């Protein structure tokens, strides 16, 4: 996993969800990445202020 994706890599996450339709995968990806982005900004806010 790349360091920039330490908080979560969607491709790795999807390895645990085989057999999902492409449409559902897209919905999950959008939701997953939005949450990751918020979490990332929260973590950096704790350091940077």
């Amino acid at each position, binding site marked *: 996993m790349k*360091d920039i994706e330490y908080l979560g890599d969607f491709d790795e996450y999807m390895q645990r969800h085989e057999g999902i339709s492409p449409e559902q995968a897209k919905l999950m990806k959008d939701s997953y990445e939005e949450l990751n*982005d918020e979490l990332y900004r*929260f*973590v*950096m*806010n*704790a*350091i*940077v202020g």
Partner: protein
Amino acid sequence: MNSNNSIFEERKKTRDDLVSLKKPKRVPVFSIFTLEAACGLAEVSVMEAHYDLSVAEKAYDRICETFYSDSLPVLNLRYPPVYDALGSRNWVLGSNGSMQHSEVELMHTDEYDEFIAGPMKMIMEVFLPRACSELDKDSARAGIALAKAFAEYKSQVRNHAEIYGRLAEKHSYADGIITGPLTVAPFDFIADQLRGIKGIMGDIYRAPEKLLEAVNAVTPHMLKLAVPRGVAERIQCFIPLHLAPLINPAQFDRLYWPSLKRLVESADALGVGSTIFLEQDCTRYIESFDSLPDSMIAWIDDGDRESFAAGLGRNHVFGGFFDPTITLARSKEECIDEAKRLLDTCMDSGHFFFSFNRNVMDIKSIDIAKLAAVLEWVRNNAYY
């Protein structure tokens, strides 16, 4: 079209022309006050405002009603309840109600190699537990603390966005010069947040190669912070510089500038302009900042105004310089004369906005009536 819409449309066009590097009809006015200043004006407790956002909103509204601005004149970046939940040692709420950054050394001298190999890994596994007492516990309790703090963070961000939206609509504000996320210069991240001032000054002399590698390793993270998931048109992230004027030019050229330039250029390539706050006097670096993309906006604390206007101001939006604290010592007319001198020097470029040299953080640091008069004068007279 009602009068409020026409006010908004005029402000929007003025701002949009400015950031597009077209000469607007007049010089835009972007005032900026902190929550502390707002509470001082409204005569309410800052402490209460941090924990009851209805108090904060009323305080912000007093600023909006008192001081002219084309954009929302208030800004609050740090939320004490989040730091409470984390047990933060690096960001502490002072007795005066201001969030203060403590000088803490989150990264030790012998941890450069680990950091370079994985900045985020070190942030999550080492620095945050050092910075936050509630994260320096077993995984279950640290997880609970992180969950609480994250929930509080999301709530604060959402509530603040709603407050700003209500105030912008009520007062017909257009966008200003900061419309995107906060990020920092990669060097400042290492210096301010990880090594501390004492540590970084030693590193500059004892381990400049490692320091440079660390700065380069963290640059992708500063870019990730700068670029939101949804990039709106003409969005401007905010980069408040810190140590640039405190290191010598050779150190700036080698350690500070290259990564900052890469950050701004990369953000620009992704559709995000950078509004850079140049703290203290950065006159000697005008040429460097002038080499940045056109989307860079310079908010300037101090320096040779003529040099900025003739240099960086030809190709970039710039503003600042005006020290609002002069209103305590000078008459209203003298303060307006100072604004006139500033405009005479800087307006010709067509790329100038009127703003303070820094946020007003303490309402007692200014004369309310005189500053309000200066802002009104600029709004009514600074036409091309």
